[in-house]
């Protein structure tokens, strides 16, 4: 497997300075190499971090958080040196761990206030901001309740409040939607999207749920077995398939009694195009047209077989396909 990531985050002069810039970062646990010569550059914004178990995500997060010094390599986060300014960095980073990380017996507002103090805020300001952040995250009504009595969704938001209280520039979120019901998950993703888009916070969302990344993130880091396989804007990483279309058709109502029309249209398509894949839905197919193809022919074939074309959409790679293409499993296909 190549160690060169598919990186499309170019360093053009128009772009803002990189949020994270890593150069030849490696880390060993004894003889096991968890990170292999990782080099990447991401711009400020919402960034997804995907990878299977053992891909090196946790090790990368620990290094970004300043909890671990890499065996070799260097880098900068928020313009600060990863190796020399760890303490300062952690003051500007908010981390929301996946594991339950609350202190039983403490009230929500006290806990968030303590998080602020531990991040270097004076007590009065920490407490004041704890109230504000809890209101912002719609926990104001339960702020004086003991955190052991919170529901799973509330606990997740409380953890987010504790990560946000010192107003960090970068949020590291480890599986923020874990254990949430669909409604809670939706609310959390909307919140994260708002934090990233409205308040100019950068966030790194580490998750196994590609849908979460698709909804919140504009950039992605795809890791596998300690290497970065892809890094950059999702739109740029997506493969734009030349000549691939998803087409949909319908039979006119007058001729709906003849179900063979759709099948014959498919047969005509197969004769004309090298690759035609019928999807699981009726009256839909993925086609790959030969070079020099004119889409006018599709309409001619439709008229010939008596169907009406309703959609011709150029096919684009979605995030699951992109992910599986890069890690080389091809599971989606």
């Amino acid at each position, binding site marked *: 497997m190549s160690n060169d990531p598919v990186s499309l985050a170019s360093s053009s002069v128009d772009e803002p300075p990189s949020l994270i810039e890593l150069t030849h970062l490696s880390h060993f646990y004894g003889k096991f190499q968890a990170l292999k010569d990782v080099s990447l550059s991401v711009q400020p914004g919402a960034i997804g971090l995907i990878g299977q178990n053992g891909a090196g995500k*946790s090790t990368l*997060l*620990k290094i970004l*958080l300043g*909890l671990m010094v890499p065996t070799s390599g260097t880098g900068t986060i928020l313009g600060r040196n990863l190796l020399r300014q760890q*303490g300062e960095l*952690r*003051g500007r980073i908010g*981390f929301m*761990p*996946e*594991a*339950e*990380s*609350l*202190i*039983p*017996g*403490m009230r929500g507002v*006290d*806990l968030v206030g*303590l*998080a602020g*103090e*531990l*991040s*270097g*805020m*004076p*007590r009065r*300001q920490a407490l*004041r*901001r704890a109230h*504000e952040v809890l209101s*912002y995250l719609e926990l104001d009504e339960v702020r004086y309740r003991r955190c052991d009595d919170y529901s799973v969704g509330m606990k997740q938001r409380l953890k987010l409040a*504790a990560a946000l209280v*010192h*107003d960090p520039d970068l949020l590291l979120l*480890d599986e923020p939607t874990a254990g949430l019901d669909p409604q809670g998950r939706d609310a959390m993703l909307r919140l994260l999207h*708002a934090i990233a888009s*409205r*308040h100019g916070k950068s966030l790194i969302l580490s998750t196994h749920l590609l849908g979460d990344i698709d909804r919140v993130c504009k950039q992605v880091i795809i890791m596998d077995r300690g290497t970065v396989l892809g890094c950059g804007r999702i739109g740029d990483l997506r493969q734009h398939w030349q000549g691939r279309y998803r087409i949909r058709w319908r039979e006119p109502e007058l001729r709906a009694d003849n179900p063979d029309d759709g099948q014959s249209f498919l047969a005509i398509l197969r004769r004309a195009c090298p690759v035609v894949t019928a999807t699981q839905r009726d009256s839909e197919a993925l086609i790959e047209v030969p070079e020099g193809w004119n889409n006018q022919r599709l309409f001619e074939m439709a008229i010939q077989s008596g169907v009406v074309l309703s959609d011709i959409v150029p096919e684009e790679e979605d995030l699951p396909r992109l992910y599986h293409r890069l890690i080389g499993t091809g599971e989606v296909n």
Partner: protein
Amino acid sequence: MSSQEPSAGLQLDHAGYRTWVGEPRSSWWSCLSIVRVGLMLIFRRWIFWILIGLGLLNFLFHFAFIYLKATLAVQNENIARFLDRYKVTGTGDAYAEFMFAQATICALLLAFAASTLIGGDYRQGGMIFYLSRRIGRWHYIVGKLLTVGAVVTIVTTIPALILFIEYGTLSNSFQYFLDHPRILTGILGYGAILAIVQSLLIFAIAAWVPRTVPLVMTWLGLFVLLKGLADAMRAIDGNRYWLLLGLWDDMHRLGRFCFGSLDEKKIPSAEYCLAVLSAVCVISLVLIVQRVRAVEVVS
């Protein structure tokens, strides 16, 4: 809408989210926050007040006794002299015994409170809460040690100091303070020994045995069983150095040494006790560091 509040270091943006632009304090300040929260967790629970109340009763008994003695001394000196024979208070021995009793109550309190203070951090993710902030592992360790040390000081040293001040203030002159400087060093010394040894020991035990019942059994077993073992071994071969195994007695002997009331000819001497307790402290610290380092903040 935009409003600037430079004094508070907060700034409201258009969507109701405030930014904070203050200068962060040194991480060592966080140790005090850890202490405050730890004390709050203990003093908020009524169950701990049973033991704190016991200590308070003992303190109030001594406090009232000193007051009574001072009042009677004004009326009839013979009664005061008669009360002095019981050495309830006023002498180094009396303070050492008072602190020993308070320390016993404190050990019981710690046996139960350590599960909340330290064990809970390992069982319920509190460690991750602390370590995912700006502070490092040493700030956490120091903060927790100071918390236990504060509990020990509140229950043992501060009451003893109050009694010392009360006794001196209610005596005929302030000569008492000048005549008994060793009592003050004794109180502070014994208090420091209790705070350091107990905080390191209970932290190490609670970090490795975080659940309440095993923790209580281990903590009390450490004192009761080791003392029993020490007595048994001494009875078998007559060697008094076996007594060093009893950590509780070692602390008491060192405390008496601080008060200047330890019989220096008796084996084991204060140096041996100090060596044993130092070794115990170092081992405890190694165990604590090992356990804290093993915690994975990112799972």
